[in-house]
């Protein structure tokens, strides 16, 4: 099965242009993003630095006490490599203060809380710096629902939400993201030793090859199976997409008027821009 490929030169031009145009048209010249030490936020930092100049990009690393120290080191490495502003704001105090009230909370609740704590810090810095928050969720995560709603999924603009993890790897290499960051195991780093692929039960490359055909090319289930994809894997990915769809939509509004927001009151967000 051929690997999912992207024309990285073209993709780089499109994504850099996207950040430059969509940020500046709202009368802003700065962006802020969370830098985890992982590849997705590293790539977004490189794209933003090229689009707006590194002096206009503010990266914040927000570790929790259980975060792998290597993550912060990698975040710092990325910030240095692309020359952007960098600060560290630990979230341990806020998260622990909350869970003192709920000591039995499981990993999922704790992970979601951490993601949402980081979101509030980024949006507070958005106001502080006059900067838009850049999202760092890729298409694979968004389709699988592998992210926290109103947490890491929250942003003003997302440059990489239409490219798969496999393409994130390719573009990162093209743009000069440090090799250590490209080559390490993807991890949400919510607890020690966590890796995405172990938690998901399949590799990103396997998922991407299937998602690309299923979503982008609209292959039917029989076509996917005939091409060699495992029947259960196809069903599992399909149900992940379906069950996480609520995360990709605005909250559902009860319709009572003639013009309901987003149903029959329809405007582009770039209205007047």
């Amino acid at each position, binding site marked *: 099965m051929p690997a999912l490929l992207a*024309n990285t030169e073209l993709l780089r031009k499109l994504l850099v242009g*996207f950040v430059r*145009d969509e940020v500046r048209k709202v009368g802003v010249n700065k962006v802020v993003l969370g830098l985890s030490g992982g590849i997705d936020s590293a790539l977004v930092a490189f794209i933003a630095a090229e689009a707006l100049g590194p002096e206009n990009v503010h990266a914040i690393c927000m570790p929790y006490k259980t975060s792998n120290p290597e993550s912060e080191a990698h975040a710092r490495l990325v910030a240095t490599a692309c020359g952007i502003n960098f600060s560290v704001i630990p979230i341990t105090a806020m998260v622990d203060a909350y869970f003192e009230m709920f000591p039995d909370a499981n990993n999922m609740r704790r992970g979601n809380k951490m993601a949402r704590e980081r979101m509030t810090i980024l949006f507070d810095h958005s106001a502080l710096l006059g900067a838009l928050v850049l999202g760092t969720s890729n298409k694979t995560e968004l389709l699988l629902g592998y992210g926290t709603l109103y947490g890491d999924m929250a942003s003003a603009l997302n440059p990489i939400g239409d*490219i798969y993890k496999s393409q994130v790897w390719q573009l990162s290499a093209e743009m000069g993201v440090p090799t250590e960051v490209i080559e390490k195991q993807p991890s949400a780093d919510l607890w020690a030793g966590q890796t995405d692929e172990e938690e998901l039960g399949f590799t990103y490359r396997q998922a991407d090859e299937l998602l690309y055909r299923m979503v982008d090319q609209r292959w039917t289930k029989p076509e996917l199976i005939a091409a060699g994809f495992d029947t259960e894997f196809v069903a599992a990915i399909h149900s992940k997409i379906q069950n996480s769809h609520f995360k990709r939509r605005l909250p559902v509004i009860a319709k009572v008027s003639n013009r309901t927001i987003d149903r029959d009151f329809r*405007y*582009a967000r770039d209205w*007047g821009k």
Partner: protein
Amino acid sequence: MDFTAVLAQIKPKLGCIADNLAVIEREIVKAREAGADLVVFPELALSGYFLKDLVPDVALRIDSPEIFRLVELSKGISIAIGFVEETDDYHFFNSALYLEDGAIRHLHRKVYLPTYGLFDEQRYLAHGESFRAFDTKFGRFGLLICEDMWHLSASYILAMDGATTLICLSSSPARGIEGDALGSASAWQKLTSTTALFLNCRVLYSNRVGFEDGVNFWGGSEYVAPSGESVVRGALLEEDFVTARVDEGALRRERIFSPMMRDENLFVTMQELGRIALERGR
């Protein structure tokens, strides 16, 4: 006759008629000062593309001051431009005007409104019902708006109506990053080249740039000679001012080398299409 056309590859602001008109006027003056005879703007150059519920707010009547201003400007240079047209019976069309010597030479209303994938035009707009060639100072022209050109019959009708120059106004979104070139750009380049080649016509293609809600319009405006060869092509993804020197001799020579349009059998085509229409009705 030989003439010089400018393809004004601009970046309209969504829903901002006054701002866009200012940019358009500036480009018209620039083209005139550069000695051009014709300036071609993209589809919906006055309003932007993903208008949705803004359609009635940005629509202009043919007798509006904005259109009158453009008609006035056409005393110095011919102009082809796209906008949302509002009619007396309050229908809204994705329209294009050809203006020359202070008069409206032709109005084309987009016939094929794409309503699939990322497009939603039929929800907001009424569709046009004709393709007509018209005479200009530079020969007989035909106007097409973006999706119109993807229907073979549209270009065919215009060519059979005597058009030797097809002007296509476009707002084509960039998509397809897997190949050597941008997917939508290579598809369009095949289309304009093949259309020119089949119909022994020139194609002047004007496509916008800029982003609307994350969708990037790719530009690449071009002049394709009747041989199908791309003579000049604008920048990809960036604003541009593309100057095309259109050579009458090239059209004449191509029509001598490949007289397909001369030999095209209108009678056979009409007979067979008539039969198909009857049989479909059964």
